[in-house]
């Protein structure tokens, strides 16, 4: 493997990992703060991809589709939390799994009714549809670098929001003692609604910006959901920091696995999970 080839795989692995982080961070936040196992989280990724495809068709550009789509997904997330998810906080995980699994079926059916069952492609925005030549034969697409950069910015923004703002303090406090937060005059229900909507919007955004690379197809949320659960488990349930570390690990392991050991590439992330769990049963940053 020469250097340029290695560099390409490294960048691909990081890009995939950072994209996974956007989806997995919402999953781990919703579990860590509200205690909800949210199986329907992958559907938000799918929703984002389909919204990007249909809105880009209407507006003519992916950027415009994202600008219109993100507020829609935030509202969608808030409505979903308000209507259904908040009924699960006091309940057992079994109820959570039943409702959120049921929602996957509902959203797949809605997708089929609204958008059909075809696979769709979305062009890379013209401005970013260029490549950086690395050698005479190899080059690297700028759009992938762009995705990595945007994901890094969002991850940093999420870090600032949670660690440095008062809202972030309230969110973290809510994870440790819900009643006490309320008795300080803070509307915890509103905070939960916001956290859920942030998670929905991040997953949908990941689906939107990745749509030109992954294409848009039925059941695309399921694949992402499973891999995101692997991320959450490896990172330690509820830990955003852990989700970042695990996303990057999985992105790199999966990408290099497909190149170096293609025979077992499909298993490699699960092997990684098994190894991490033997070493640290609560995940990298999890509390035992």
């Amino acid at each position, binding site marked *: 493997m020469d250097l340029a080839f290695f560099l390409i795989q490294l960048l691909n692995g990081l890009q995939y990992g950072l994209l996974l982080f956007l989806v997995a961070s919402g999953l781990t936040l919703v579990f860590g703060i509200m205690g909800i196992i949210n199986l329907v989280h992958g559907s938000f990724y799918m929703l984002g991809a389909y919204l990007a495809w249909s809105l880009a068709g209407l507006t003519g550009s992916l950027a415009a589709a994202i600008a219109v789509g993100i507020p829609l997904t935030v509202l969608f997330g808030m409505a979903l939390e308000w209507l259904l998810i908040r009924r699960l906080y006091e309940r057992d995980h079994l109820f959570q799994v039943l409702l959120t699994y049921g929602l996957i079926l509902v959203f797949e059916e809605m997708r089929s009714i609204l958008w059909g069952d075809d696979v769709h492609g979305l062009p890379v925005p013209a401005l970013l549809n260029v490549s950086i030549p690395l050698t005479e034969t190899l080059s690297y697409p700028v759009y992938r670098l762009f995705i990595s950069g945007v994901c890094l910015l969002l991850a940093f923004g999420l870090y600032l929001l949670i660690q440095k703002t*008062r809202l972030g*303090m*309230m969110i*973290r*406090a809510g*994870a*440790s*003692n819900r*009643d*006490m937060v*309320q*008795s*300080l*005059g*803070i*509307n*915890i*229900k509103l905070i939960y609604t916001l956290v859920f909507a942030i998670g929905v919007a991040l997953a949908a955004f990941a689906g939107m910006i990745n749509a030109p690379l992954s294409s848009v197809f039925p059941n695309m949320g399921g694949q992402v959901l499973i891999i995101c659960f692997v991320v959450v488990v490896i990172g330690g349930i509820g830990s955003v920091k852990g989700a970042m570390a695990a996303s990057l690990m999985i992105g790199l392991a999966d990408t290099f696995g497909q190149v170096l050991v293609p025979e077992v590439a499909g298993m490699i992330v699960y092997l990684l999970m098994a190894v991490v769990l033997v070493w640290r049963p609560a995940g990298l940053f999890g509390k035992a």
Partner: protein
Amino acid sequence: MAELLLEAQGLHSFYGVSHILHGVDFSVARGETIGLMGRNGMGKTTLIKSMLGLVRPRQGSVRVRGRDMTQTAPHAIARAGIAYVPEGRGIFPNLSVRENLVMAARPGVDGRKEWDFNRVMATFPRLGERINHGGGQLSGGEQQMLTIGRALMTNPDLLILDEATEGLAPLIAREIWNIIRTIRASGIATVIVDKNYGAVMALADRSVVILKGRVVFAGSSNELTDNEELMHRFLGV
């Protein structure tokens, strides 16, 4: 009589199937200090939680500043000027000392901003030395100061202290009592639940004694201290 900040009437509360409160009346007027007494398991904490919206009473009403808030969300009751220092302290161990305080900051009901970060620091210099420590790393006494400081950051008109000195070394407990005296002198009404009945009654304008979910005594603290029979029967002293 001064404006009633908090007024509970005929509260009946349950935990699951056990009937904890049997028609309790309780009230706090502006600036008043009330000792809420009774042995363990008599319903003091349940009464407090029922008034704060954390436990929903099955019967009875809770009025805050004259407004019925029996079914109101706990955060809205807190925003009516009531701060709570719960038994077991309720600090956020995953937040730093600074964050525990800053997240709670808000002006009082009438826009008062008497208590802010700097004043809490001046009142609790020990917290200043620990400002960037995690809440979970503090000693019991420091945690108690943090919970009281955090409650003051909301600029309350009424502070409810549930077992504020429980489990603290005598010297630290004395420090907490001094702080409670300072808070009382600043005009904030207080409800004090504490095993140290002597210290409570020395501070309280009125005392309320609860026995098995019923109020068995409500009156001036002197009346209670002078009556050895009551003290013995209700409080086991």
